[in-house]
């Protein structure tokens, strides 16, 4: 499933048995929503933790300091960007 026409520089996100190709934009939250993956959001600054997902495989980096509590496998999507292909789970 491709959510953007431009495939150069895309990454693949595995979610619930499906694969989504996306071009990383300013935040993983925005990218996942563009693919139709439902992720709720709140402060968009990594404080409230509402946008957390579980990262099964892959690497991300943060644009800001994650202030909400996250366990080792969790990611605050509002301030994260994908670095590699990802496999994720949501609540």
């Amino acid at each position, binding site marked *: 499933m491709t959510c953007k026409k431009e495939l150069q520089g895309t990454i693949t996100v595995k979610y619930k048995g499906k694969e989504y190709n996306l071009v990383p934009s300013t935040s993983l939250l925005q990218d996942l929503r563009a693919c139709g993956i*439902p992720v*709720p*959001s*709140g*402060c*968009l*600054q990594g*404080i*409230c*933790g*509402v946008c957390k997902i579980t990262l099964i495989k892959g690497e991300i980096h943060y644009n800001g*300091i994650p*202030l*909400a*509590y996250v366990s080792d496998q969790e990611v605050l999507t509002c301030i994260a960007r994908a670095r590699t292909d990802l496999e994720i789970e*949501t*609540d």
Partner: protein
Amino acid sequence: MTKREYSTFSSHNDTYRPMFLGPCVDVARYDQQSHEILETLTETQLSFFWRPQEINMSHDRINFRAMSEVHKEIFVNNLKYQIMLDSVQGRAPNVALLPLVSSPELESFIITWSFMETIHSRSYTHMIRSLFDSPSEIFDQITLHPEIAARAASVTKQYDELIFMSQCYTSQGEGTYTWQGEELEVNLRSLKRSLILTLYTINALEAIRFQVSFVCTFAFSENKVMDGSSKIMRLIARDESIHASATTHMLNIILQGKDQDEEMTAMAHECLPQAHQIFMDCIEQEKAWAKYIFRNGAIPGLNERQLCDYIDFLAYKSMKQVGLSYPIIKTDHCLTWVEYYLKSYNVQVAPQETEVSSYLSGQVNTQMQRNFGGLDDL
């Protein structure tokens, strides 16, 4: 008899300081931190500093007068509940937690936290003054309101127990004491138990109770009324998310044994059933409150059922973060419009923003000369 006498400056050379019930505080230094996140959260709180006078409430007064009696009652009851919550939070963390704190970064966080809560209380006074000709009447009614009084008792009971136990332990030492007609065994273990349950009570307050009240205010703004109140509430909501995050971090540091206090960690795991009950009681009370405030009618876009669904959503998310599970799995955000009000970058208040009028006081001369001939006439 074992006791822990509080000292405002007890010199020792420990580089690692547990958050609570270690050595008493000494040098307020932030070059080394046992838990860096607490210092980061303090810095973030300070960077968010704001004052309610920055928000223009003149349109709210006009809106409020034009509202139906049902909506006026919902707005005011919700505001009274918020006033009660912040009255507690403006003092209780200082009184209950500070005497037990050992790390300077946590001490600084708690002082800043309570200070910000007093800003929130000042905001409510600013709002009430703007809306009512006799603001004192509204404040006088708060403690007489049975539904609010019941919630106040629930919010403060755990704080009061901890304060009592802490005072007994620091002044008299271990022993059996009578509190509110019940015998309380006071020792280091029971003090740690009470502290952990207090942290869970605060977490439920910050992560659920406050958030429920915020959406009620935002719902008015969504209907294009009470925008000034909504702007203030967005700033308060931003602060409260920091406070909820801090107690979540504290509880996880303890639960995961990252504070070099094995007894505290074991106690936190023992307390999980009681902590679960604290959250369940809070959720039940908030749903009862939703039923009460909407008993005569709803706000377009927010009714009792939607608010209860939102409470389930908040409960599922927040309980999961502190080692608890909520039986109702509610993962979809049923009030998606709330996201707009919670976006932190939407609440920045720079002096040049239009709603900021305080900095212009007395600076603009509105007198115009009919025969103004140019700069030479000045």
